[in-house]
């Protein structure tokens, strides 16, 4: 269970691209057939060579628009007959330029091999087109930059950014850390919350547990601690996996984010308060359920209540933000995490989110405690 959050981001960011690369390589190994209708210029022919294509040259019998498949549609999408994967139609037109052509590539977008044939043919045409443009410019004593990029940036655009690599890394973290924390705290806490409450009710272990001299508040704290531990380990695993994946993708060039000690402490405080709040709410809801199935059917959709505001708060502009944002539950924690990561320390903001989050956490604990003192805790549907 702990390995799942640790591996999910590496799986998405590393394994998935590797898998896709493998699939693309497999596709590129196929020898595909392209029928060229019309006169095939020698330059284009040379670009089509080396793309694992079998070229069949025929006459162009179309008088109208080249994109109109006409009778060729059936040859391509029936999958029978000539085994032609794509058809390139070419018609040279009169113009002032040295060369000018109309073209169209007929293909079947629902057929992977047909699409691959179209992609390879298009690549060849674009390369040929670049050669034609360069040749035309040369005939007129022009360079490519003079023609297409007369006003251009001098040097590297990244060099002109005064933000340090650490600042950029911190801003990057601020974009997804709150979301990861919200998603994994809420989702990771669901299963243990249900198992330790509704699950215990259903299995009949709750009644035996409540008959011991241990106070109900102690039992609830024990359950809360277990669920919070699972949730926190999951979040940490998720973040470690994410940072590893990002670092791997950037070739180890990821710079350490510039976050002060105060920022780290505020971030930790916000995560802890959020975990207290979320776990207590989920425990309280699960305690009310009479069965595991009932608890699951309530807590599953309830995750959206936590994730929705977090997602929304990601887009709130932190510059000149109104104070009341830091009063709203969930929003306040998300914004607090963003500010801590971005190095924004507004005493009023901090005071507001700390006090309100503390109040929400205490309220959630009180509600969970109230639910855990219910008499019908020993009843179950089983």
């Amino acid at each position, binding site marked *: 269970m702990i390995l799942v959050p640790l591996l999910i981001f590496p799986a998405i960011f590393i394994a998935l691209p590797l898998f896709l690369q493998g699939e693309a390589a497999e596709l590129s190994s196929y020898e595909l057939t392209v029928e060229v209708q019309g006169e095939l210029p020698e330059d284009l022919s040379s670009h089509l060579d080396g793309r694992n294509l079998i070229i069949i040259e025929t006459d162009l019998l179309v008088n109208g628009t080249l994109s109109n498949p006409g009778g060729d549609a059936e040859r391509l999408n029936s999958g029978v007959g000539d085994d032609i994967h794509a058809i390139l139609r070419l018609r040279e037109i009169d113009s002032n330029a040295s060369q000018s052509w109309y073209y169209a590539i007929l293909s079947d977008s629902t057929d992977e091999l047909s699409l691959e044939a179209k992609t390879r043919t298009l690549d060849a045409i674009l390369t040929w087109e670049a050669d034609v443009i360069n040749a035309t410019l040369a005939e007129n004593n022009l360079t490519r930059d003079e023609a297409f990029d007369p006003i251009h940036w001098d040097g590297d655009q990244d060099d002109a950014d005064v933000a340090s690599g650490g600042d950029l890394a911190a801003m990057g973290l601020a974009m997804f850390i709150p979301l990861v924390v919200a998603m994994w705290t809420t989702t990771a806490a669901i299963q243990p919350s249900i198992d330790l409450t509704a699950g215990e009710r259903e299995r009949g*272990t709750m*009644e*035996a*547990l*409540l*008959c*011991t*001299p241990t106070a109900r508040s102690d039992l609830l704290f024990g359950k809360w601690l277990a669920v919070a531990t699972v949730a926190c380990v999951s979040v940490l695993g998720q973040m470690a996996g994410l940072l590893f994946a990002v670092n791997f993708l950037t070739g180890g060039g990821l710079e350490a984010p510039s976050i002060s000690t105060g920022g780290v402490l505020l971030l930790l405080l916000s995560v802890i308060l959020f975990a207290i709040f979320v776990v207590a709410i989920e425990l309280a809801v699960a305690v009310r359920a009479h069965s595991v199935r009932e608890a699951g059917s309530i807590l599953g959709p309830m995750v959206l209540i936590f994730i929705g505001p977090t997602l929304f708060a990601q887009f709130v502009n932190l510059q000149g933000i109104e104070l009341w944002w830091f009063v709203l539950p969930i929003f306040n924690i998300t914004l607090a995490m963003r500010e801590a990561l971005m190095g924004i320390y507004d005493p009023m903001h901090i005071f507001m989110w700390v006090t309100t989050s503390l109040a929400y956490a205490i309220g959630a604990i009180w509600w969970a405690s109230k639910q855990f003192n219910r*008499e019908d805790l020993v009843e179950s549907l089983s």
Partner: protein
Amino acid sequence: MTIDLWVGDMVKTLLKVSDVTKSFADVTALSTVSVDFHAGEVVGLVGGNGAGKTTLLRLLCGLYQPTSGTVQGVVDEQPVDIHRMREHVGVVPEATGLYARLTAWENIRYHSRLNGIDDDMAWTRTERFAKLLNFDHDLHRSTRGFSRGMRQKTALLRALSHGPEILLLDEPTGGLDVTSARMVRKLVRKLGDEGGTVIYSTHNLAEAQQVCDRIIIIHNGTIRADGAPEELMSSAGRDDLEEAYVALTDDVARTDAPAEDEGRIARAWRRMLTRGGGSVE
């Protein structure tokens, strides 16, 4: 703390139930029940389904709060809150409530630790009673896949592991085979003979007559009779306990077993629907 059986020449009272009524929503599970439980007696709570036996047991171990009246423990002749008696009480709920991932001993040890008992002491007690139940070779087996009898024995050992003065058993022989039920009965009797207090609910009159010093017949949430088996037969004018039971409960048993608290919204909704004589169902 240990509890002496006698105060002077008088039997010592351990649990005191006074004018207790317990209601769940619109259903009254127990109605003005008063009864004392004394040290060293084996008491059988006998009654049909929904009579109120389990409710009374749950009140005695503090899982339920009475709607009216009081349920108290007695320590040093002083009434105390029932929750203060928890460390002196061992409970075997009807569902047994074992963790399937743990062995029998691990289940027992977990509860003895919650009762503040060290493992060595718990093991000594457990081993002793396990031998009586012919269960000592199964203590280190996982409870997953245990038969009903084995589960019941584990739950009994768990309830005894911290050395309680009072044992509350909810249908301890229900669903057991003849041999297992006999072992449980023998253990209960032995505990009674050694001065322990056992209160247990059962449907089985013959079993109650065989094991109990005292039988309390509960019917429709009220106590219909309370005394030694011979006293019950005598008061009903019958020679047979079963006939005495029928005579003492000779009215229609209620069919509305205590319901769980349905909640304010559900209750309001049901009342609204039934106001015109309609029914929710």
